[in-house]
């Protein structure tokens, strides 16, 4: 699929989309500061904040000590006192020391002060595998956090959504965990509308229309699901692919409308299956639309192991593929 810039849009990859959006936020609002490990002189390990420190200065682009609990915790305090911090956890695998500050603090500040204090904070982090990242640079973390009221979680897959959703996350009055699949960083390019715009959190997007099966996904797997659905199209099998975009809140209407139409549901995600995002979607559809279904719901998800291994066969075994997804789709359409 060739993508070209037009008069009103620019082609960029996901890294460039994150970068452009952060740049715009830094330009437009002096309250915005970025803090994290190696975000300054290095310009982030993926070069997302490259040259920011030169333009915006050390006070706004803060190379923190290696201390993730305080990266989030200090951002909470900044947010409580009127700044609009964007905290970065260098890799999602490093987020665990800050679990207390995210789950126990940020998500509760508004609630526990009855609204007197608020916590408008964005925590960005690259997640996901397929990059030979081994046990500690590959994980998906969304299921550990989507159980938490008070927190919002966004996981865009396309550059235009990255921009619109990151803008929405930055504007949001509550804490948002913004997940960027690192394998899609340079792999996925697309047209991004020029100028400022937001995409509301909690709204899914039908990326491919179809009639015989609904596939719900996000992240790298969304792209693979689209690729698989395209293959099925060539076999005259019609699959609808929904890009969730937001994990909390999640778009019920989009899922139900599609399932009512196709009467079949496949959920595809890289994160572990047991207790994953697909479990909640399955339960919701079973509660709301069980009798619309013509086949059992199926989930194609990460295996129940702690992470993918470094050696190539261990990573390939963990990760699904467009071919495997196509097989699953085919089986369901023909069920």
């Amino acid at each position, binding site marked *: 699929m060739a993508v070209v810039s037009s008069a009103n849009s620019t082609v960029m990859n996901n890294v460039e989309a994150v970068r452009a959006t952060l740049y715009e936020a830094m330009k437009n609002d002096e309250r915005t500061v970025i803090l994290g490990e190696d975000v300054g002189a290095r310009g982030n390990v993926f070069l997302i904040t490259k040259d920011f420190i030169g333009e915006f200065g050390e006070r706004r682009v803060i190379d923190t000590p290696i201390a993730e609990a305080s990266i989030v*915790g200090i951002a909470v*305090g900044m947010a*409580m006192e009127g700044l609009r911090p964007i905290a970065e956890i260098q890799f999602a695998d490093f987020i665990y020391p800050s679990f207390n500050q995210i789950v126990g*603090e940020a998500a509760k500040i508004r609630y526990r002060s009855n609204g007197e204090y608020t916590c408008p904070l964005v925590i960005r982090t690259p997640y996901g595998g397929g990059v030979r990242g081994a046990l500690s640079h590959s994980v998906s973390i969304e299921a550990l956090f989507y159980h938490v009221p008070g927190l919002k979680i966004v996981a865009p897959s396309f550059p235009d959504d990255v921009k619109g959703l990151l803008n929405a996350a930055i504007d949001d009055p509550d804490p948002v965990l913004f997940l960027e699949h690192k394998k899609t960083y340079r792999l996925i390019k697309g047209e991004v509308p020029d100028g400022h715009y937001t995409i509301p959190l909690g709204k899914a997007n039908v990326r491919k229309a179809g009639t015989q099966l609904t596939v719900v996904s996000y992240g790298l797997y969304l792209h693979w699901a689209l690729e698989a659905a395209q293959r099925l199209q060539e076999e005259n099998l019609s699959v609808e692919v929904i890009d969730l975009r*937001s994990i909390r809140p999640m778009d019920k209407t989009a899922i139900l409308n599609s399932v009512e139409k196709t009467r079949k549901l496949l959920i595809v995600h890289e994160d572990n299956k047991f207790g994953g995002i697909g479990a909640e979607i399955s339960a919701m559809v079973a509660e709301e639309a069980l009798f619309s279904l013509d086949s059992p719901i199926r989930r194609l998800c990460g295996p129940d192991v702690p992470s993918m291994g470094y050696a190539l066969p261990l990573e390939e075994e963990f990760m699904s593929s467009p071919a495997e997804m196509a097989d699953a789709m085919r089986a369901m359409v023909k069920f």
Partner: protein
Amino acid sequence: MAIKPEAQSKVSLERHGLTDEQLVAIFRTMLMQRTLENRGFQLNRQGKIPFASASEGHEAVQAGAAMAFERGKDILVPYYRDLGLALGIGLTPYEVLLSLFARAADHSAGRQFPHHYASRRLGLHTISSIIAAQLPHAVGAAFALHYRGEAGRTVLTTFGDGATSEGEWHESVNFAAVHKLPIVFLCENNEWAISTPLSKQMGQPDVVKRAEGYGLPGAAVDGMDPVACYAAVGAAMQRARSGRGPTLVEAKCYRFLSHTTDDDDRTYRSPDEVRARRKDDPVPCFERLLVEYAVLSAEQVEALKRGVLEETNDATDRAEAMAYPDAADLYEKVYAEGWEPWTL
């Protein structure tokens, strides 16, 4: 000023610039803290509230530190044993009782444990039960002041000795030192973390000795002496307000009561030990000093105590008469707007 009863005639009152009126205000805060605190325990024993926590022994450090706090400017990020500090910066006994009774009119609308106040008006951050969790927030708040160039403002954050063992304590002090932020870390070292004595909390007993390793100044002060605490905390806050960076202040005090109404301290320390430390009780010590130096007469002390008790009684009756939050309030203030995890 070392206020020891057996040596009271020998000590002198070093005022550190405090007027009679300020000294009396400090003393009144101490009396109010103790009275309100006992009220919490009484209400618990009467079965009227399920829980109360205690700060007896912290009156001097809190009243003194509060006197160094500039209302309307500074920010306080305290922990849950800071009743006196909260009172000292302007929280009313009625607000404290609303918290104890978990009424709808409470700042947290009855969501939080007692003594977990928050007041945007006073610059009083919302308190967490999670030890040291407030410290990164305090540092972030100090960063915000510094970032906006708001010279003349500072953050005062407090914690007990147990909190110094948390990773977040370390990360917070380190970050504040690296960025020379306007913040004062005040450790209220009462020697006990629930049942864990200081000797099991750290390998040497002086929190202040950690300051050098972070590259910030440290100051130790007698936490039973409200005027000394005012002076030490005041100097540190002035340093922070003038852009000279953070300070670690350690005030040595003592926890006279159990950790909370749910705790029984006889299971881990002897009543004799506690009794022996009562001789340093800052409330009667400071009272004797003020009377000796004629800042207050005995009659004025009695009048103060009466006034404090009346105010406490009045606050108790008013708060108790107020309504609980509605059950539907459970669903409020999760996000800025009404919410559902599923969007339609």
